[in-house]
């Protein structure tokens, strides 16, 4: 049957694996978006720009401080997360009571500003960032050559996704967070500092984006445009998964990565469109997304 479609089973497995790897990035980015939307009600359009900042912090840390890849995995999310918290404190928190559209406009504007600043400073064609020596090379799996670094990306992304899901859905801290979004006044009455918690949550979402940026740096060019190339797809992933649904964004991220990968084999011209076709269909059939609940 596979041969009928013009592709051998070996090649198909290879493409499935590649799809999973790309899905890992979609999952990590859409996870951050889902956390921020679910708990803050902000459509964080500057997520792509913050992902790009994560990659740039890694690049600059290597160039100017001699910090390699592994420390950057910690440093970049912390730095960019702090930057995100500053954004939240100074700008975003004024918008919580307003319509979604205001948050969307503000963050979209921020994305353009951040990207513009980086493009002006570093140009558009990108900067090189090597694969860490411990992860260079790859394994021959028989049906494909799997670069070690890509394998690491899947593992790291799955780990981070599951940890985030666990913290928010299964721990006491997560319970506070969810309660705070449900009824902030009541939670505050119990003596919990809700505004600070919201700031930290936004910081966490942003840090996830920055972490994805560091993971992406050795694969893609560290370029001011890397975020905008990805963010629209990631938004589609969030919409398909159901706005604000954490598990939904993880599952959808990986699934759509695979779907996109398969499209690249059977009809590559459509590979940049297929996700939006699925989004349109899902919105028609289930307007709240696959995992979303109607409010």
């Amino acid at each position, binding site marked *: 049957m596979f041969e009928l479609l013009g592709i051998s089973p070996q090649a198909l497995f290879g493409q499935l694996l590649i799809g999973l*790897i790309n899905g890992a990035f979609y999952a990590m980015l859409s996870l951050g978006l889902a956390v921020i939307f679910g708990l803050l009600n902000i459509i964080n359009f500057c997520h792509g720009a913050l992902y790009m900042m994560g990659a740039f912090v890694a690049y600059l840390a290597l160039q100017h401080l001699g910090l390699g890849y592994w420390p950057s995995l910690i440093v970049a999310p912390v730095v960019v997360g702090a930057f995100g918290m500053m954004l939240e404190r100074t700008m975003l928190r004024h918008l919580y009571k307003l319509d979604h559209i205001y948050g969307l406009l503000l963050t979209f504007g921020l994305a353009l500003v951040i990207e513009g600043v980086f493009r002006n400073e570093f140009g558009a064609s990108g900067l090189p960032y*090597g694969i860490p020596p411990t992860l260079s090379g790859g394994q021959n799996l028989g049906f494909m050559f799997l670069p070690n670094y890509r394998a690491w990306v899947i593992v790291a992304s799955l780990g981070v996704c599951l940890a985030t899901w666990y913290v928010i859905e299964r721990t006491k801290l997560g319970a506070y967070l969810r309660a705070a979004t449900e009824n902030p006044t009541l939670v505050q009455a119990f003596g919990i500092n809700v505004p600070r918690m919201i700031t930290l949550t936004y910081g966490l979402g942003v840090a996830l984006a920055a972490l994805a940026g560091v993971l992406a740096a050795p694969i893609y060019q560290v370029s001011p445009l890397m975020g905008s190339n990805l963010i629209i797809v990631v938004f589609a992933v969030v919409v398909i998964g159901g706005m604000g649904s954490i598990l939904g964004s993880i599952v959808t991220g990986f699934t759509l990565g695979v779907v996109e990968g398969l499209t690249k084999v059977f009809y590559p011209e459509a590979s940049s469109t297929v996700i939006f076709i699925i989004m349109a269909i899902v919105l028609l059939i289930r307007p709240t997304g696959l995992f979303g609940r109607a409010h």
Partner: protein
Amino acid sequence: MRGVKSVKALGLAAAVALAAGTAQAQVSDGVIKIGVLTDMSSLYTDLAGAGSVVAAKMAVEDFGAAAKGMKVEIVSADHQNKPDVGSAIARQWYDADKVDVIVDVPNSGVALAVNEVTREKNKVFLVSGAASSALTGDKCSPNTIHWTYDTWALANGTGRAIVKTGGDTWFFITADYAFGHQLEADTSAVVKEMGGKVLGAVRAPLNTPDFSSFLLQAQASKAKIVGLANAGGDTVNSIKQASEFGIVKGGQNLAGLLVFLTDVHSLGLPVAQGLIFTEAWYWDMNDANRAFAAKFAPQDKGIHPTMIHAGVYSAVTHYLKAIEQAKNDTDGKAVVAKMKSMPTDDKLFGKGTIRADGRHIHDMYLFEVKKPDESKKPWDYYKLRATIPAAEAFRPVDKGNCPLTKS
């Protein structure tokens, strides 16, 4: 066609005669307005973009326009790689803003659209950034000159060199728009002509971040050569990821069909070393080029000039020379005819000619990217493998199917 030509010649003669008494009177509103239409925000920004504006300004300065009493103004805009945006800007420039000539326009899709608008409005279009050989082929226009390079020249230079050294089976990863298709078609033709075989091709959407899926298909094809019929960020990402997936270690070789200096800079020599490709110009080839680069780089964030920047400089210089002699910038066809009638000569491209189909003819070069230890200074990236003489570098004028060359 002969009749049309002689009418054109008459018109030109009349214009020159009229202008003789009133030196600048025929230059529309006394100002020669040059519009640099380029990519200011996306993947071609560094290889053209703001640098093309710098190059145009340097051409005007070096020409000494002010001292000669010519008023030249430069405007620029971002076409966002969208043909509709590009042609809308071109219309506005020609109709409302009195722009006389549009230069650069990287992205063949946009260039082909501007080509038609320029023909309709009878202005001048000097192409440096775009690659499609259709601009001097079946889409050729009496208002357009294609200056720096084209897909045929790239295919011919790189394709020929690679097939000669044994790379006779090819698989293409092609950018899915006018330019990529043309580059793939032109290269396939060269490969087949030389007795090689094309095993397959895959069309990747423009601005794809991840090429691994396409690279796996290339790997599975077992072709000796993976031809990258793309440009800018797409080329950079495909080369970088090809090294990650061990394409070259697995015995296949990459052929970057369109690689720019800025791409090599962005990849870094450890990844880019050994790549072979064809270009029209390199900054470190002679003293004139080095002097140009030294003056150019500080004005463009340290980016050293690419062949596109040099082409903008050279084309604008020749345009100003033609205007100086014709004393007329209102009739685009007449200006282009004048430009074709004069041999070209400037410090960057040296001596050359412009053919009836609008193709600027000059030498092309086959370069190889240096190994990291061969590079002695910043931006020291290429070594020259071969010079492709002007007579062989471009598609023969009778093979292009350009209506202008048929009488």
